[in-house]
């Protein structure tokens, strides 16, 4: 099965396919495809009777943006503290936890031009044979857009909506991208690394 | 010392109450803006009429009135209101109201004169023995002997009504 999928996936242009060690990673095949090929990958897996376990995003925010966000957060916090003091409140109860993302180190390895990216991860699994396939797709952070696969897997509908909630990634062609888990009128994307409430 | 009312007086008082209920119910039934209230008025009116029947020595008919009119007809009407959900009626124009009052008078006078005509011109023998035990034996006897033809006809009418109602109500539902 793994070989079959690998073979079919390799037909997708500019797909990076890695066979991973299951015991260490928890999946068998890691396929990275360009944004416009997500649907093709989904169709291949659909034909092989895979099911979609989850769709999610990862925000690979670059160092510069992180710095900026950290500064912003610091400024906000300072303003908040000032306000708190002004209100002559007793000491804030909560221990301030670091919101700023500890990313700088990890991203250094990634090539410079890939820095400001978001990753969408699709987890596929097969019910009869053990074969977990991870399809990844990187989209630019400032205009995160990629086609929806909810036509192929209707179950992806909610997963994509959720990903849109959390990261603001737009799935083109999705029937309804209104907030799923966040309040109806929410306009923030909490899982972005530069998010602060 | 104050004299306490006799049972007859009480019965008379209750009769007055029943009359009031009947008429009030009727007025609500024709005047209420919302149909659901009109039906409630109708129910009240029917309950009053049932009371009148009781005073007319026929508890059986009184109960049938409750069973059929209140329990069946009014429930059906309420159902129809639920299904059709009409908006409250538009305000009735003044002209219309005057016409209505005139019609009320005309109708009442007509009906009344007919009734009086009937009572005075026709040759009625004296009223027969009053029955007040609510026995339905006599009714049953004449229903199945003297008026058995009408009885059968009524049952056919009811059957037709059921079939007709079913056909009419079903016509709206079309299988997709």
């Amino acid at each position, binding site marked *: 099965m793994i070989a079959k999928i690998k073979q079919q996936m390799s037909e997708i242009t500019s797909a990076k396919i890695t066979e991973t060690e299951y015991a260490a990673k928890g999946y068998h095949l890691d396929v990275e495809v360009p944004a416009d090929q997500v649907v093709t990958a989904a169709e291949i897996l659909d034909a092989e009777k895979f099911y979609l376990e989850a769709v999610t995003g990862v925000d690979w925010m670059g160092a510069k943006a992180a710095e900026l966000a950290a500064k912003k957060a610091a400024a906000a916090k300072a303003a908040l503290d000032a306000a708190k003091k002004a209100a002559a409140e007793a000491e804030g*109860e*909560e*221990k301030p*936890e670091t919101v700023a993302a500890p990313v700088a180190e990890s991203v250094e390895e990634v090539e410079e031009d890939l820095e400001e990216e978001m990753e969408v991860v699709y987890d596929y699994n097969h019910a009869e044979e053990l074969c977990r396939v991870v399809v990844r797709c990187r989209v630019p952070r400032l205009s995160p857009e990629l086609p929806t696969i909810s036509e192929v897997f209707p179950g992806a509908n909610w997963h994509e909506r959720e990903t849109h909630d959390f990261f603001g990634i737009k799935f083109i062609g999705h029937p309804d991208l209104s907030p799923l888990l966040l309040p109806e009128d929410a306009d923030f994307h909490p899982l972005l690394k530069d998010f602060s409430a | 010392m104050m004299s306490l009312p006799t049972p007859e007086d009480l019965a008379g008082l209750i009769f007055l109450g029943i009359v009031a209920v009947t008429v009030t119910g009727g007025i609500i039934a024709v005047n209420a803006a919302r149909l659901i209230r009109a039906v409630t008025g109708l129910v009240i009116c029917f309950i009053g009429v049932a009371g009148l029947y009781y005073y007319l020595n026929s508890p059986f008919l009184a109960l049938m009135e409750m069973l059929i009119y209140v329990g069946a007809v009014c429930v059906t009407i309420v159902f129809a209101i639920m299904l059709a959900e009409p908006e409250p009626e538009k305000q009735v124009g003044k002209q219309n109201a005057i016409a209505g009052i005139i019609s009320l008078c005309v109708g009442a006078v007509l009906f009344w004169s007919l009734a009086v005509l009937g009572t005075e011109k026709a040759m009625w023998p004296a009223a027969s023995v009053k029955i007040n035990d609510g026995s339905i034996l006599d009714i049953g006897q004449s229903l199945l002997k003297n008026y058995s033809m009408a009885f059968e006809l009524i049952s056919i009418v009811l059957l037709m009504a059921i079939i007709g109602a079913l056909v009419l109500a079903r016509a709206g539902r079309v299988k997709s």
Partner: protein
Amino acid sequence: MSGYYRDLFGGSWSLLVGLGITIKNMFVPIVTEQYPHFVPVMTPRFRGHIELVGDEETGEPKCVVCGMCQKACPSGCIKLAGEKPEGAKKKVVTSYILDFTRCSLCGQCVESCNFGAITFSKDYNLASTDKNDFIFDLKKRLEEKS
């Protein structure tokens, strides 16, 4: 048609069987523990809010204000302060405030403590009309206890 009769008779039988089971249970002994009259005993591992542990001899808290529990707590319930009195070898806790209303009873504070200075209490029936009742001053509680 046979399905109809099967449903009718089999179904009626199943209903009777159901009635039998409920009536049987009417005569099963009652399992209710009548709480205010019956005092339940918590298991030794029951996790209530935490308490400071006093030294067996002196009754003073064993805590050395290392702050591990504070660091381990996922919800930041613990606030502690200590000072080093002159001549003493280790720090002494001056205040140990537990905001129990934030606690998730995960027990990581107790696990992280290397000195056995905190333990779980057996308070299982806390309720109050004032929520500040649950911000415990553990040092005071320890003093009251001893």
